[in-house]
Structures are given as C-alpha cells and as structure tokens.
C-alpha cells in the first residue's frame, strides 16, 4: 500500500513542464504562497502528479498551482500563488 507521503515529489519534477509553459528554467525561481506568504524556490515545493499536477506549499500545504494538460490544451490555475518570478 502506497500512502500519500510516498507519492510526494518536489518542484524539480515540474521543471520540464514549466520550461514548456513559460519558456524558461523555473525550478530555482522564487514563488510566494498566497495562503501563508512563505517564499520558496519552486524546487522546494511539494508536488503530486496524477491526471494533473498539484503543487502545494511546503509550509502550509495549501494548493499553489494546478496544471492539467490534454487535447492539446493546458489549464493552469495559479490562484494559490501570490507571485512567481520568472527570469
């Protein structure tokens, strides 16, 4: 039996899709949680992958980013992110 903790990855795992979406390397970029205000590099965030990708704050566990891809489209929800620096 695999628990949720075992399925947890980190932001290194979304470097490829972030590069595809934003055109730049994002794992070392700072990201601020809209829930608790913590500022961390993307690589340090918690990542869960399944049908889509859920990126959670590594401090408050709030959902920061959701990404779902399919049928040639990408749905990106950044409502849990106060800011993300690119470049």
């Amino acid at each position, binding site marked *: 039996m695999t628990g949720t903790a*075992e399925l947890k990855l980190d932001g*290194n795992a979304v470097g490829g899709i972030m590069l595809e979406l934003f055109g730049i390397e994002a794992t070392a970029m700072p990201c601020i949680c809209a829930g608790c205000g913590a500022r961390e590099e993307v690589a340090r965030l918690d990542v869960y992958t399944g049908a889509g990708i859920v990126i959670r704050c590594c401090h408050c566990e709030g959902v920061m980013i959701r990404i779902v891809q399919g049928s040639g489209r990408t749905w990106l929800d950044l409502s849990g992110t106060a800011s993300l620096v690119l470049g």
Partner: protein
Amino acid sequence: MAGAAVLGRLTWAPARVSDTVVETPRVRTLELEVPGWAGHRAGQHLDVRLTSEDGYQAQRSYSIASAPGDGVALTVERLDDGEVSPYLVDEARDGDELEVRGPIGGYFVWDGDEPEPVLLVAGGSGIVPLMAMARQRARAGSSAPMRLLFSSRTIEDVVYREELDSLAGDGFEVFHTLTREQPPGWTGFGRRIDRDLLDEVSWPASERPRVYVCGSTRFVDAAADGLLELGYEAGWIRTERFGATG
C-alpha cells in the same frame, strides 16, 4: 505570433541510444546521441517520452549521469511495475530512438566552481545526479572538498562502485552504508541513514557546506531532518525526490 516566450519554448527532441552499460542487475546506463545538444549542468535531468504503435505515450524524468561536456548518459533503475523503466533497463538497444526534453533544472545543480565543502547523500539510484557532480569535480579540477554518503541495499546494488573507488582521494571521500545485507569483512556502515550516521560523516555545520540529497521521499526526508538536527540550515540543503512510478 512572435515573442521570446514562444521562441524559448522547450520542445521534445529525438534522441538515439548509442551505447548501454549494465551497472547492477536492476540498473543500466544508456548513452544517448541528441542532435543539437547544447550542454547541461551536473545535477540536471531529462524527461524521456516513449510512444507506442497505437499512439499511447508515457514520460518519466531521469537524471543525467554524465559530467557536462562528456555526452548525455542516463542511468535508470528498473521498477518492475513501471511503464518506462523496464523498457529502458531491459529492452533498449543501440540505435533505438526515443524523445527527450531538457536538460531541466537550475536548483539541484553544482557547477564545480563553488568553493564550499560539498556533502552528497544518495539513496539507491539517487546516486545518479550526484555522480554527475563527482565526475564534474574531477573533470573541472575543482578543489572543493566533497564527501559522498551512499546508501544501498546490498553490495550488488551499489551503482558505479568501481568508478567511485577510483574517484576517491584528492579531496573526494566515499562512505557506503548497506542497509539490507553486508558481505563478510564489510568495513562500511550497515544501517539506514539517521542523525548519528550523518554526524559521523558530514561536515561540521560551522563549515557551511552545500548539501545535495537525492533518493526516495522517505530517504530524503530522513536525511534532511537529520542534517537540520545537526545544525545545518535549510537553505544549504538541496533535495530531489524520486517518484514511485518508473
């Protein structure tokens, strides 16, 4: 539409298997030819995508094992119920084609020109990106002192064992721990990584080392927690977790 974001977009590129090396019964290295490869940094990874005849696609991330400037080699562990790793470890042969996206990563990287002491902590195939760093240290002639603590299940599971032996010395130290079974006469450690084991091999916190930890989520959490207890600051510790799907 013209624009830097579009021009800079990373796309999938074809790659060809040019050589394979059996590392352990479960682990194999694939050397790839990637036309137009612009180079990589030690610690980065590649996304690999396979497409079946009916169009089904599966993709996974694999760390680059080779030092920058020394080609593109992936070292892959077979996860028996995985979709991609059994093919890469057991079936792929010279000339096979696959798609890759990358190199990826700007956080879990070490370039070889950083002066601080380096602590590498590897669990199983978590050694792969750290091996790129050890190879880069030798290749770049770095004088940064580097220690590797490498946890494997048995002696047969130790990836790159001979090469690590040959790299050791000249400021690079290797400490093995075997968690499941130790051969007769074993002089290394024989238990899971914990605070006490880390205390025995790691740099004192006063040296403010750079730390790279790679392995399963459970392994990474245990190592990072142990280092924090020893007075390391979270900002010194870079971690990369391996997924349970292969």
